[in-house]
């Protein structure tokens, strides 16, 4: 398979992937704004979305600087098409019901907690600085998603069913979180990136242990859907981008 952005430096591709992960998840979370189950939760989800927007901006700014072709953070976010986005697929799945959103967040918060804890030691000072900032936020996100998963898992039959259903849907997409691409392995060997594959055992143990306390199993899935880092997406991303990029596409260069 052809590699997307093969003509770009590994560092640019790495930063772009992290930025795309953040901006796409941020948009999905922001879709809850004014639709949350109640006001406090609405505000909380919007705040988590804001943290991810901040993270996306830092990675896009750095990516733009590394690329050095005059593209800005906004160009990268708003003027690329679906097949040029390199986010891991789990971030782009539609927000679903509140249970689905919280299960995805829980799985990702746990992943980012492990991932960022390694990325703070990156040889690249800027990446290490971004990770140091982001990990504090992620720890807080997890502190909020854990009790939600517990509460919904042990709440009513309906809430439990929704958690189980969300886990079932998401299990096909978690494998990609731990799959390295050659350019990323190259960076990991230089101490810049993190070997995501090495995090899987800890992540599995944590997730399964947490869910087991509520008597829920999170089994392996034989079907692992992948392709995000190479621009191969689910049918959902294009629709999401058409909304996210609408203003810039309709009124190019428009500013607030």
């Amino acid at each position: 398979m052809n590699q997307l952005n093969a003509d770009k430096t590994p560092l640019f591709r790495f930063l772009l992937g992290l930025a795309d992960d953040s901006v796409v998840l941020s948009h999905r979370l922001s879709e809850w704004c004014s639709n949350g189950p109640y006001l406090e939760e609405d505000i909380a989800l919007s705040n988590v979305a804001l943290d991810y927007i901040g993270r996306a901006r830092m990675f896009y700014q750095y990516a733009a600087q590394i690329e050095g072709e005059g593209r800005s953070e906004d160009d990268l976010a708003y003027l690329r098409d679906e097949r040029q986005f390199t986010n891991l697929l789990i971030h782009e799945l539609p927000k679903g019901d509140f249970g689905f959103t919280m299960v995805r967040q829980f799985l990702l918060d746990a992943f980012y907690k492990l991932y960022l804890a390694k990325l703070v030691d990156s040889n690249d000072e800027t990446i290490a600085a971004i990770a140091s900032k982001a990990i504090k936020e992620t720890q807080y996100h997890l502190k909020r998603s854990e009790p939600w998963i517990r509460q919904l898992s042990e709440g009513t039959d309906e809430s439990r069913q929704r958690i189980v259903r969300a886990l079932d849907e998401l299990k096909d997409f978690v494998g990609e979180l731990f799959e390295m691409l050659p350019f990323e392995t190259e960076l990991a060997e230089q101490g810049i990136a993190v070997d995501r594959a090495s995090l899987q055992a800890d992540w599995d143990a944590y997730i399964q242990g947490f869910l087991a306390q509520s008597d829920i199993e999170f089994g392996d899935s034989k079907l692992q859907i992948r392709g995000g880092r190479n621009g191969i997406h689910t049918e959902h991303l294009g629709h999401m981008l058409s909304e996210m990029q609408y203003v810039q596409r309709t009124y190019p260069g428009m500013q607030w």
Partner: protein
Amino acid sequence: MTNLAKTIPTVNPVYAQRRKFRADSEFGQLWDILDDVCDPELPGLTIWDLGVLQDVTIQDSQILVTITPTYSGCPAVDAMSADIISALKSAGYEQIKVHVALSPAWGTDMISPAGKQHLAAIHIAPPQPDDEPDCPVCGSHNTQVLSQFGSTACKALHRCDDCFETFDYFKRL
């Protein structure tokens, strides 16, 4: 009942280091000018007391102000930068640049003791090591979390179960 240990101001090492850094700076008057710049969302709390203001220097006849954002997506950063420039311009300076640094990452230990007192005075409970704030209105320890996020990313929403006041808690980070 008021928890006395929480009301006695103590200086943590992170703030002590900031205070020394400022005291050692040769541009004391610039720091003083910036004591007029406040966080747009926290009335009367200066960017120094909040810990956002990290450094002020003059390089090649240009003033370089370094700030660090509280949260990575904090929208107040743009407003603060504009306020910094306008404060220095009113004091007669022309060439000013605001640099937003990511490192060192901001933490609540950077907030000054005066800043914590100010937060309490405007009924925002200051950060606590155990994340269990006393009610900033009546001082009761009998409080509970309503939401992990309040009106901004840096605050959580709590309620006092004695005086029933809802209040913001500035989260420990």
